[in-house]
């Protein structure tokens, strides 16, 4: 690597980040451009912004030799140039055409950096693109022969100027062809014909980061974004991780030094020790003071470094207006997406992971939640449905809410479907809450027909699983006829957690404290069996037991008199993990196990303790669901997993 003239990989990584950002910006610009379709006149500021973004992509892809990306960016740039010089009218067709171009460009960038196969249908698209640019160039040249004030520069083509009627007819013809091309060349979502009403989806652009929400500041948003960019630097996440690792070490040693100081202080207090104490006494006090100071500073460093890793969740939200727009168009619905709290910060790793589940929920809202415009009108609601996406901090958590003003979850349908699928019997009486819980069952979907948007039956269970993986909580509220609200609560960071240390056979394991409800010592006679599985009764509730030593195949002898139990909560149910002894609580730094080790069920990572030894971190969720799948916990007690 070092003997190469320059590190291409680094440039490619930089290109990828930059392109992602720019493509996102293009998306936003196009969405805003779409609002001007009615007036037929584009805001020159937006068109210029589009032009600049395409131009940057063209430049950097050229530098890295990604000629296909460069080529398409160049062609789209030409198209924008026509808009900019007002040689092409702004219409739904032309915006749609730009949208497809942007999608092709995204695919090409992905392909260029080796993340996916090159998109199909590209040649056809670029062919049409060339054709239109050529036609418009020619037209405007002709027009300019008569009205040179409409364009800037460009020599008249010397042919006979056309009369107004001819020009109008020509433009109408081109408009028709444009719409046709856009309809056939769009790679992703199907597009409604151009003659239908312009979809007002996603009317509001996401507010600029850090600027709060100023709905009218279309230009201000762009400028605010630029100035905030000037004060940030791009740092490789690996470097931050390395820093965080070091801070982790510091935290561990801080704990250790505090321990030593405490122990020493206790020994000092023991009068039985010999006379030389008089000399060490002040030193011991100094150590204690110093340890306290170290602890404080370390905490501050740790907090600061966590803050560095924080990014505004708006990074994820940015791509949603486009998704909502596309899905709404495809389903013939009118939907507006209102975003607030885009500047709420949370850990980069969580931001990266939370995008997919949120996207899925939004698609669900549009597809299942919001009713068709006519249906809404019949119910006395505005034709346009509203989806609100909101994020805010609450204590040590971030809350993300997605709510719609659609029809709500149809409980009768859920019930009928559950009976059909054999999930519940016809006689079972379930509360509304329990019925809603059913939609998290794998393979459950009430959509009457399978669509490409949602309703494939993989969905809500996957969303829930992903949120749970992030140590988050997922909740649904629904009122018939009034709408549905999804609430997601996520921890601000995943890197440092409070954990309960337990000993099992010879090893120490750490159980994340957020899933621990309580720990108890239970006498053996109080442990009963149900269908061969051990259970205890805790405040009237039957709690199944899971012996960690058995699950991890550690061997070891069972205590015939008592069991030490850590009660963990999982999706509202409780499971008792049987360990050998409790070893106290500690703040631990999560380190992933090397991918060479592979994924181990029941283990989410490891941590290094103050004395340098390693403790594995128990992944409560996968432990319990794996034990359940393996028949180690009976279904009767644990139907929740």
């Amino acid at each position, binding site marked *: 690597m070092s003997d190469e003239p320059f590190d291409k990989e680094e440039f490619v990584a930089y290109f990828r980040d930059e392109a992602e950002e720019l493509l996102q910006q293009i998306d936003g610009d196009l969405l805003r451009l779409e609002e001007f379709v009615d007036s037929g006149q584009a805001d020159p500021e937006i068109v210029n912004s589009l032009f600049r973004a395409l131009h940057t992509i063209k430049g950097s892809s050229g530098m890295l030799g990604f000629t296909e990306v460069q080529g398409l960016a160049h062609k789209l740039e030409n198209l924008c140039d026509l808009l900019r010089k007002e040689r092409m009218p702004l219409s739904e067709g032309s915006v749609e055409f730009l949208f497809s171009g942007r999608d092709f460009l995204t695919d090409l960038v992905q392909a260029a950096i080796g993340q996916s196969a090159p998109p199909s249908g590209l040649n056809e698209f670029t062919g049409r693109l060339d054709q239109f640019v050529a036609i418009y160039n020619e037209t405007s040249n002709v027009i300019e022969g008569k009205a040179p004030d409409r364009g800037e520069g460009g020599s008249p083509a010397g042919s006979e100027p056309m009369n107004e009627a001819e020009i109008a007819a020509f433009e109408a013809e081109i408009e028709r062809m444009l719409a046709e091309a856009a309809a056939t060349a769009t790679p992703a979502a199907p597009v409604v014909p151009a003659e239908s009403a312009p979809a007002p989806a996603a009317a509001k652009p996401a507010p600029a980061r850090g600027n709060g929400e100023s709905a009218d500041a279309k230009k201000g948003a762009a400028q605010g974004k630029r100035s905030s960019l000037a004060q940030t630097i791009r740092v490789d996440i690996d470097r931050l991780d390395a820093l965080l690792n070091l801070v982790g070490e510091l935290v561990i040693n801080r704990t250790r030094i505090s321990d030593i100081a405490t122990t020493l202080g206790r020994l000092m207090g023991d009068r039985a020790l010999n006379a030389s104490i008089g000399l060490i006494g002040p030193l011991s006090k100094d150590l204690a003071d110093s340890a306290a100071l170290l602890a404080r500073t370390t905490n501050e460093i740790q907090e600061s470094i966590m803050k560095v890793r924080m990014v505004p969740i708006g990074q994820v939200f940015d791509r949603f207006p486009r998704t909502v727009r596309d899905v709404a168009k495809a389903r013939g619905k009118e939907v507006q997406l209102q975003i607030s709290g885009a500047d709420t910060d949370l850990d980069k790793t969580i931001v990266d992971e939370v995008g997919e589940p949120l996207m899925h929920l939004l698609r669900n809202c549009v597809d299942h939640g919001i009713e068709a415009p006519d249906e809404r009108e019949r119910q006395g609601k505005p034709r346009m449905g509203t989806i609100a996406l909101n994020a805010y901090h609450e204590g040590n958590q971030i809350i993300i809410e997605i709510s719609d003003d659609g029809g709500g979850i149809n409980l009768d349908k859920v019930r009928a479907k559950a009976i059909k699928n054999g999930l519940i019997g016809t006689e079972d009486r379930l509360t509304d809450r329990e019925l809603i819980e059913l939609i998290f069952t794998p393979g459950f979907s009430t959509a009457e027909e399978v669509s490409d948007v949602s309703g494939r039956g993989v969905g809500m269970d996957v969303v829930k699983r992903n949120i749970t993986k992030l140590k988050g909580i997922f909740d649904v509220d629904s009122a018939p006829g009034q709408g549905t609200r999804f609430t997601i609560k996520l921890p601000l960071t995943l890197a440092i957690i409070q954990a309960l240390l337990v000993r099992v056979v*010879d090893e120490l394991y750490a159980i994340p404290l957020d899933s621990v409800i309580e720990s108890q010592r239970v006498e053996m006679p109080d442990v009963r069996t149900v269908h061969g599985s051990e259970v205890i009764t805790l405040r009237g509730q039957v709690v199944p037991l899971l012996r960690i030593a058995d699950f991890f195949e550690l061997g070891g002898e069972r205590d015939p008199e008592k069991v030490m139990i850590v009660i963990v909560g999982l999706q509202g149910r409780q499971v008792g993990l049987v360990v050998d002894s409790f070893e106290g609580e500690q703040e631990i730094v999560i380190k992933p196990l090397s991918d060479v080790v592979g994924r181990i069920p029941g*283990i989410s990572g490891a941590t290094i303790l103050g004395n340098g030894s390693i403790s594995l971190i128990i992944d409560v969720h996968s432990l319990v669901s794996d034990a359940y799948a393996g028949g180690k916990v009976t279904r009767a007690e644990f139907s929740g997993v």
Partner: protein
Amino acid sequence: MMAEQREEKKQQYSGETFQVVSFRLGGEEYGVDISQVQEIIRMVEITHVPRAPRFMEGVINLRGQLIPIIDLRTRFGMNRADHTKSTRIIVTDIGSKRVGIVVDSVSEVLNIPVENVEDAPEMVAGIGTEYIQGVGKVDTRLIILLDLSKVITSEEKQALDSVDEAAE
């Protein structure tokens, strides 16, 4: 074809010699390219990882870094041996992966001239030949030259396979 591959391998090494760290494993002598060796440490406490593949001894704490440890004997289908005073962990750096391998003892650094290296015999008892680069002759000794990246790549595959099995 083998000869061509060997030509390529030879070109990877600077000059005319293979520079290898040699170690013993069950009565045989092995060598790994010195550029893949990060450091050699004495046996430390290994934290067992439950339900990991059999050859995965566990993880160690190397100055604050978690390093997975592979028992090369198990990996090569030999009997597991008790750790002795001479047991060592060779910490290797392959690509971005840092892995420790447990060996019976580490001998020395050897320079083996290219002309003294032969292709691996088609079948070597107990070991698949994909990670054997060749056999080096030093006086009367035979040094089996290992490509550690191959040992670890196929390692991973096995690890993944066993996880899949566990999931089923």
